[in-house]
């Protein structure tokens, strides 16, 4: 399998490479670092002309890419690509499709001051249109060791079962403990009843998925229901392992086989201390 890494020579790009390395560790995965440089519109003609700039920019991009590749440890295969495009997000999607990548890995932040995730414009556009899962590294993600636990956020909406399938299969392939996370925002209300209902629902779903794949030697998944006055508070109340990663489904509004970050997922993203993978609607995994 290949992962496409949206690389830029700044903190955001480094976050992305670290996460991609963590995801690729001990897996049969190679990385493709893609650096997108802007494609000039001829309708924004540079006058007086300065054609030498393009060479300089290409050399610079090459150096940046070499620096990025140097961040990847020797046990992981990585290639670098320079792409041109007027939209960085679109160029990354094109590269992912062309290279038949299983996922796109990017740094999510714009260097926001207060929240862990302030979604940058590239991440924002990708999350609205990517046909492959998008892994988002939080600001300052340094960890490059293998992932230790997989969490899967889920609700009662259509698409939850498919997401659960993806989560169960991923956890089995990677030999990771799976945790199902249901986040509830409750202002007053009968919280116990709702939490119980959520727990029951999760157990039901899991049983259904488990039955459909009888050969699964998957350790018993943990089911947790987190509550808070807001989704952000619910996220904060959960314990997260350093090596954890959260899998999340895309919104009902997403076009078939494209990601769309719904408002709940968006709020989770802002509070989350660990990386998150947004899975497109109706996505089926590539077999490795």
């Amino acid at each position, binding site marked *: 399998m290949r992962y496409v890494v949206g690389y830029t020579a700044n903190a955001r790009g480094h976050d992305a490479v670290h996460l991609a390395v963590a995801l690729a560790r001990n897996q049969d995965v190679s990385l493709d670092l893609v650096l997108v440089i802007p494609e000039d519109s001829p309708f924004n003609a540079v006058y007086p002309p300065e054609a030498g700039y393009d060479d300089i920019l290409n050399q610079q991009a*090459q150096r940046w890419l070499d620096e990025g590749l140097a961040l990847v440890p020797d046990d992981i295969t990585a290639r670098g690509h320079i792409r041109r495009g007027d939209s960085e997000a679109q160029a990354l999607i094109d590269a992912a499709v062309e290279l038949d990548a299983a996922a796109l890995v990017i740094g999510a932040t714009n260097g926001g001051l207060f929240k862990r995730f302030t979604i940058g414009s590239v991440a924002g556009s990708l999350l609205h249109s990517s046909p492959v899962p998008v892994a988002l590294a939080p600001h300052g993600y340094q960890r490059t060791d293998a992932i230790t636990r997989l969490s899967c956020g889920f609700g009662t909406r259509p698409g939850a079962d498919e997401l659960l399938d993806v989560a169960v299969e991923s956890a089995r392939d990677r030999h990771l403990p799976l945790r199902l996370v249901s986040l509830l925002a409750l202002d007053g209300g009968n919280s116990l009843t709702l939490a119980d209902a959520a727990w029951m629902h999760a157990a039901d779903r899991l049983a259904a998925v488990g039955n459909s794949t009888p050969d699964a030697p998957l350790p018993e998944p943990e089911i947790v229901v987190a509550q808070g006055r807001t989704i952000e508070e619910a996220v904060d109340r959960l314990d997260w392992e350093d090596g954890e990663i959260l899998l999340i489904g895309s919104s009902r509004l997403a076009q078939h086989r494209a990601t769309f970050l719904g408002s709940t997922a968006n709020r989770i993203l802002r509070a989350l201390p660990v990386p998150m993978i947004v899975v497109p609607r109706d996505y089926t995994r590539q077999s490795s």
Partner: protein
Amino acid sequence: MSTAPKTVQSKESTLSEKGLKAGSVGLIGAVVIGVSCIAPAYTLTAALGPTVSEVGVHLPAIFLVGFIPMLLVALGYRELNNAMPDAGTSFTWATRAFGPWIGWMGGWGLIAATIIVLSNLAAVAVDFFYLMLGQIFSNPSLADLSKILPLNIATTLVFIAGACWISYRGMETTKGVQYVLVAFQLLVLGWFAVSAFVHVANGTAFDATAISPDWFNPFAVDSFSSFAAGVSLSIFIYWGWDVTLTMNEETKNPEKTPGRAATITVLVIVIIYMTVALATLSFAGVGETGLGAGNPENQSSIFAVLAGPVMGPFAILMSLAILSSSAASLQSTFVSPARTMLAMGHYRAISPRFGKISPTFKSPSFATIAAAIAAAAFYVITRTVSENALWDTITALGMMICFYYGITALACVWFFRASAFSGVRAFFFKFLAPLLGGVILLVMFVKTAMDSMDPEYGSGSSVGGVGLVFVLGMGVILLGVVVMLVMYRLRPEFFKGKVL
């Protein structure tokens, strides 16, 4: 398992050498690009008045003559561009032809010209911004806000900073926007001319003046000084025309499109310039009072004064056309000095900090901000020193264009000296045309520089008994010489020819 990382440069086949989408521009598109680079509404409002002050009613003649050196140089420019498509610009070409010293000054001249035009574009945009506010709210006192010096300077700096920010972020004008801007400019200029002629026919013109064949006779201009000044101003009005000649793979037909587009562009531009020039002269005359085109009060921005009386309530369209075209040019013009400074920084001709590229936006970072600071500083200085900053900067700009264009043209002659006599075509395009064009421009430059020492030159502003235009023009060039010598002390490797 250990595999050494390797880099694959995947260049898409649909991309040109310059990073532009290949085959994406048709003939009309190329003409639109050419006209948008000239920005006729802005150039006319900025240059028409100062040119009338030099040559009076012979404005149409000078506008026509001014195209000749531009054409001659552009022919040489095109040869250089074909021979060294990646080498870039005046800086690299002149360095390869004449060595680092003249190359450095060629680069400096180009940067200075673009910095001056940036400050002028911002100032014109600000004038029409306030004028338009006044027209929208039918309150002339809003238009007068641009005459309050601190407010004017503050607004201009905001415009410069905004354009710098957009350019730094790498945002660009799209095809659709460019088509609309160009069509709108041409439409409004045509409207202005027709309205002016209607006033003349109805007897409601300010100073109806009958068009005479003598207006088209460049030899009737009263002195060589006026002629030289007029020509260096009219170089400015065609500046940008040759952009289509440097296009190739991005056009649908690289063999024919650039040449045809350049021809159509110049026809469109000459027609619109002639029509507007004749309309302005017939309507307003060249008198030095009231609305007269010879009135020094009107010369910094002729349409700001004439659009109202000529177009009535529709004058707001003129404000909008000039504001939009100068704002769009302001943003796109930032790219050129930034990239030239970046190239100079990259080749160690100036501090390598100028060679920095923003990792986030992949655009020149230090150089773009430096260009904005230089344009802002230039504006603040001229505005505080001069009674009529726009007028004087346009005249100084004409000089600066003559300077770097002249150097580039002669670089072409020198670069091709070995093959210049290999055939008729080579002789004409690689030798005769650029030689004539370069010599004409440098003669214009020297003549204008000498005349501008007179404190009465241009708008009549002066510093220490020397004309402001001279101080601006020669001051900038001398500053370049000083910076160059400092650079030679600090980083001699470029000047020893070790880099380029």
